[in-house]
């Protein structure tokens, strides 16, 4: 299976371990991901605050790049996924708007025709083919590891643009965890916002949101949270030492990118997946996994 990889900015910047682990996960799964080196930032719903037309034109240009390669786009960031799907919906809802955007693209040699599908990594795995491939290639099942999903709200809402079957109560990420041999943990905050979009504007509220989500996962027995969004990762991992709610109780919980979790089960080591670069130590995961394999012997 070959896809055009829309990396997003954060996987090339503050969470380079996401890029690293995506490459490993793709390798282990036998996916061919072709990096879209000429694609621009999705705008994260922020460029559209300045100019919706600008944001859509830039994203339509990215779609055109994948179309020329006859490839569907895979994203590894819930924010990229949600933002690109929004542009796609606007272009497809109005012929007039699509023509307007295509007029802007024309001089650069690009056109949007709507041929390319845009899928998040999780949604590629959560297909029949993806799951079969995953199950066939698992080398180290994540037995005994209790994993809580944090979906990233951009991939869920508005539901009409979501790839999840039931965006209010999705199960796809948990199905992936179960396929990896882990134990999924369900908790209400898994479909909420991590607060990252307002960390620069209202830090207390932002950390309040991430704190509530982390506490919810801990209270429901999770050993680790896995997320499909590097911005959620920044919020839940990088800001975790500043979250008062957790500090008061001296609690912490490691946060993994979904491709890291997948690649662990495919046999890659935590260091190969950049897990040592996280702010919150991930050693607990190694201990749980080595404990379960030791007891299995």
């Amino acid at each position, binding site marked *: 299976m070959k896809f055009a990889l829309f990396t997003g*900015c*954060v996987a*090339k*910047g*503050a*969470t*380079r371990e996401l890029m690293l682990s995506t490459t490993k996960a793709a390798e282990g799964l036998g996916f061919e991901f072709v990096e879209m*080196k*000429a*694609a*621009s*930032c999705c*705008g*994260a*719903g*922020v*460029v*559209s*605050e*300045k*100019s*919706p*037309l*600008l944001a859509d*034109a*830039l994203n339509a*240009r990215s779609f055109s790049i994948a179309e020329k390669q006859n490839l569907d786009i895979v994203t590894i960031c819930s924010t990229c996924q949600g933002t690109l799907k929004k542009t796609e919906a606007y272009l497809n809802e109005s012929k007039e708007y699509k023509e307007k955007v295509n007029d*802007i*693209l024309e*001089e*650069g*040699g*690009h056109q949007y025709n709507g041929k390319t599908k845009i899928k998040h990594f999780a949604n590629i795995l959560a297909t029949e083919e993806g799951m079969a491939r995953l199950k066939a290639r698992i080398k180290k099942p994540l037995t005994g590891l209790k994993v809580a999903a944090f979906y990233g*709200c*951009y991939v869920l*809402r*508005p539901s009409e643009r979501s790839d999840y079957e039931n965006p*209010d109560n999705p199960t796809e990420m948990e199905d992936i965890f179960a396929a990896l041999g882990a134990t999924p943990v369900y908790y*209400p905050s898994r479909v*909420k*916002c991590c*607060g990252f*979009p*307002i960390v*620069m*504007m*209202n*830090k*207390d*509220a*932002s950390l*309040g*949101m991430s704190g*509530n989500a982390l506490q919810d996962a801990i209270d429901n027995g999770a050993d680790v949270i896995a997320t499909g969004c590097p911005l959620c990762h920044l919020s839940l991992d*990088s800001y975790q*030492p*500043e979250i008062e709610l957790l500090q008061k109780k001296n609690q912490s919980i490691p946060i993994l990118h979904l491709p890291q979790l997948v690649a662990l089960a495919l046999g890659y080591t935590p260091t190969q997946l950049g897990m040592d*670069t*996280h*702010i919150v130590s991930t050693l607990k995961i190694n201990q749980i996994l080595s404990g379960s394999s030791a007891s299995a012997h």
Partner: protein
Amino acid sequence: MATFRIKRFNPEKQPEPYFEEFQLDIPHGATLLDCMNEIKWKLDGSLSYRMSCRSAICGSCAVKANGHALLACQRQGEHLLQDDDTITLEPLGNMKPVKDLVVDFTPFWDKVNKIKPYLEPKEEPPEKERQQSPEQFRLIDDSSTCIMCGACYSDCNTLEVDDNFLGPAALAKAQRFVSDSRDSKTMQRVQDLSEPGGIWDCTHCAECVERCPKPARPFDRIKEIMTVALEKGVHNNNGARHALSFTNSVKRSGLLNENRIAPESVGIFNIPGLLGLIPIGLRMLLKGKIPPIFHKSIEEVDDVKRIFKELNQ
């Protein structure tokens, strides 16, 4: 037979809310509100909730069903049944329960009033109506459909952690006046709405869009106010600086430069703000998570620059 798990609360009798279960055969095609009425009329007359029109117009009957706010009269009971044949009903969130499913809307209305939900026109009232062209009307059409049911307010992720946030309904209402060609206070409005608790405290989660039973879609309206605020030059706040820094970064390289966005958002002359970034900066630095200092551009960045230029951005 369906089981309705309803959160009951009567502070005069018991300080804490509790769940009570009612069994009901849901008649085919019955709305959730029809079911609630059946329970009240035939099983327990003390069950309290608001209702009026039964036609998704008055906005009275919003409740939480299975954890999410909706209009009880707009959804069929059968469609809300969970795998275990239950429907869980709770009062709206982010407001204090008064009794059972009735909540106190006072903060909701206070915030709607705070955005001055009335036209402040330029001139004296004309003899006849103030006319709007179809194009002018389209700008305010969606927000005009809001029925003030509070479903968006109930599920708003920012309000869960910050009472000061004006919330989606009041902000959607504000857009209706910000974008109204007959209003004379656009500048004042976007300045007020750019204050803490306003548009820039929206966390983009689109929970309000999902819960809105009408085409008002509050988050979309909030974004429209943001665009007007930026156009009008109301830039002296972190939200506006963040949007400008972000957009300028994409203009320069095609990508977001994460090293610049944080200091540029808080303001490069804002010493306390910059000092506040040090803990996260240090943590990231020590773990090697600081983005590359030399920010690389995408391939064919000139085409991106051309698009910016063509759109006068």
